[in-house]
C-alpha cells in the first residue's frame, strides 16, 4: 500500500479574473463582463456555470449568460440575494474576483441543430438561457425556427431590455413575453408564463424546448408543454440546487442519485422526470 500515487487535481483554487464592466439591469440584477488572465477563453458550453469567489464572502454558482461564440470574455448576470452576491453588486470595473470552472453539463447544441427551438424563461432563468439564445442567433443557419417566451413578476424586472428589443425586431425570431403584475406603462400580456404557451404555433415533433426558471415554475410549464403535446424527449431543463463545490464532491446538489453540478444543471427531461426530488 505504501507507495500508491494517485492521479489528482487541485479542485478548489480559483483563477483571479478581471471585471471589465458592470451594468445595472434592474434593482436586483447586474451584469458583469469578465476576462480570464491573458484573455484566455473560458471554453464553456451554453448552460454551464462557474463558481464565483470573493475572499471572505465565499463562493456561489453562477450561470454563464454569454455565448461561447462571443468569447474570449464572458458575462454573468447576478441577482443580489445574500452574502456573496450582495458584495458582488458593490464591485466596479477593474475589480478582481475568483473564478472556478466552467462546470457542469450544458446544453447539447447538436440536438437543437436543424430543429425548431423554443426557449421558455422565467425571471432570472433568462440569464442562463441567454447563452444558448445568443449561440443560436450567432449560428442562425444551423437552426430552424427560433421562438423565445419570457415571463417576469413585473415590468421593472425585465432583464435584458436591449436584447429583447433586438429579438423583437428580428424577422427570424419570434418573441413574446408576459408579466405577472402590470404597472401603468405596461401594454403587453399580463399573467403567468403558462398563459402564453397555449397560443404558440408549434411543429411539436420537430421542436426542441429549453426551459429555465425558478423552482415553482417547472411543474406548470411542463404541464403546459404536455398539453401542447410536446414529447418529453424534446424537452431540456436547467435546475438549481445548493452547491458547495461544483465538482461532485460536497454532496449538496444531489437530486436522488443525480448530481446537479456534474450531471446537470441542464438535464434531458426524461432523465429527471421520475426523480421525486427533482421538480
Amino acid at each position, binding site marked *: 500500500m505504501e507507495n500508491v500515487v494517485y492521479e489528482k487535481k487541485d479542485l478548489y483554487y480559483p483563477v483571479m479574473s478581471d471585471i471589465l464592466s458592470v451594468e445595472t439591469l434592474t434593482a436586483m440584477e447586474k451584469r458583469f463582463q469578465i476576462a480570464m488572465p491573458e484573455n484566455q477563453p473560458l471554453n464553456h458550453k451554453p448552460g454551464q456555470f462557474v463558481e464565483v469567489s470573493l475572499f*471572505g464572502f465565499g463562493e456561489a454558482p453562477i450561470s454563464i449568460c454569454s455565448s461561447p461564440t462571443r468569447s474570449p470574455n464572458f458575462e454573468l448576470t447576478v441577482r443580489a440575494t*445574500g*452574502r456573496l452576491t*450582495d*458584495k458582488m453588486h458593490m464591485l466596479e470595473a477593474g475589480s478582481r474576483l475568483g473564478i472556478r470552472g466552467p462546470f457542469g453539463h450544458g446544453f447539447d447544441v447538436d440536438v437543437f441543430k436543424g430543429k425548431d427551438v423554443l426557449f421558455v424563461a422565467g425571471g432570472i432563468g433568462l440569464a442562463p438561457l441567454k447563452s444558448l439564445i445568443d449561440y443560436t442567433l450567432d449560428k442562425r443557419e444551423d437552426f430552424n425556427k427560433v421562438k423565445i417566451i419570457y415571463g417576469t413578476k413585473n415590468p421593472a424586472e425585465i432583464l435584458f431590455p436591449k436584447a429583447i428589443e433586438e429579438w423583437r425586431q428580428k424577422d427570424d425570431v419570434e418573441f413574446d413575453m408576459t408579466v405577472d403584475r402590470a404597472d401603468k406603462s405596461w401594454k403587453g400580456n399580463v399573467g403567468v408564463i403558462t398563459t402564453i404557451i397555449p397560443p404558440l404555433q408549434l411543429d411539436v415533433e420537430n421542436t426542441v424546448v429549453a426551459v429555465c426558471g425558478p423552482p415553482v415554475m417547472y411543474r406548470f410549464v411542463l404541464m403546459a408543454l404536455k398539453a401542447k403535446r410536446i414529447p418529453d424527449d424534446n424537452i431540456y431543463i436547467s435546475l438549481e440546487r445548493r452547491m458547495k463545490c461544483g465538482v461532485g464532491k460536497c454532496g449538496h446538489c444531489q437530486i436522488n442519485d443525480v448530481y446537479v453540478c456534474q450531471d446537470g444543471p441542464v438535464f434531458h427531461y426524461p432523465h429527471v422526470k421520475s426523480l421525486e426530488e427533482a421538480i
Partner: protein
Amino acid sequence: MSGQKPKVAFFDFTGCEGCQLNKLNFENELLDLLELVDIVEFREAMDGKADYYDIAFIEGGISTPQCIERIHDIRRRCGVMVALGQCAVSGGINAMKNLHPSEWVQEAVYGEDKYLFPSIPAQPVSAIVNVDYEVRGCPMSAPEYLHVFKSLILGRKPEIKDYAVCVECKLKENECVLDKGMFCLGPITRAGCEAICPSNGQYCTGCRGPVSNINRDGAVDMLKKHGYSTEEALKRMKMFNTNEIDKEIKWGR
C-alpha cells in the same frame, strides 16, 4: 459601512448581566475588534446624542412598557440590529415567569411594591421590532458573537448555524455524555457555541434554543429514553426557551 469606521452601540434591557460578564472572557479578541469600530458611549447613546448607529447590539429581553418604547426608538436610529444572548433572542430565562400568572411573579419579586412596577410577559426583542441577526446562548456564545461582529465589519451577512450542537460536538470528537449516562439537549439545540458544555464534560442544557424545523414529538421521546418523564423533559427543554418551545412544539401526545 466602507470608508470610516462603523458606529456601534450596546444597549441593555432586562437581562442578568451574564452576557456582559461573558464578554470579559474573550476580552483580547474583543479589544482587537473594537479597534475596527467606533463605539458610541453608553451615556451618549442614552442622551440621544448620537443619532445613528450602524450596528446596535441589544442585550436583554423586553419586559416593561418602557422597554418597548426604547427599543422602537433604537430601531429607528440603527442600521443593523443584533440581539445578544438568549434573553434578547427568545426571552430567555426571564420568560420562565410567563409560565406563572404575572401578578404572582410581581409579588414574588417586588412584594408589596408590585403595582409600582408594571410588567409584561418577557418577550424577545424580535417580538417588538425587526431584528437582523441573533447571537444565541445563555450566556451568549462567544464564537458566534465574534463571527457576527467580524461579518458585520466586513459588510457581509453572518452565517448563522441552524443544525444541532451534536454536529460541533462530533467534529471535536468529544465523548458523548449520553455514553456516560447523562442526558443531553445537544441533539435538538442549535449549534454555534462549539459544543462548549459537552467539550467540558457537561451536558447541553439547550441554552441556545431549538433548531428550526424540529421534530416535536421525537425530542420528547428521546428525553424519555434518557429517563425523563414527559413533564421533566418539557421542563428541561423550556428552561431557556419558553417562548420558542411553546411556539414550536404543540404538546400533549
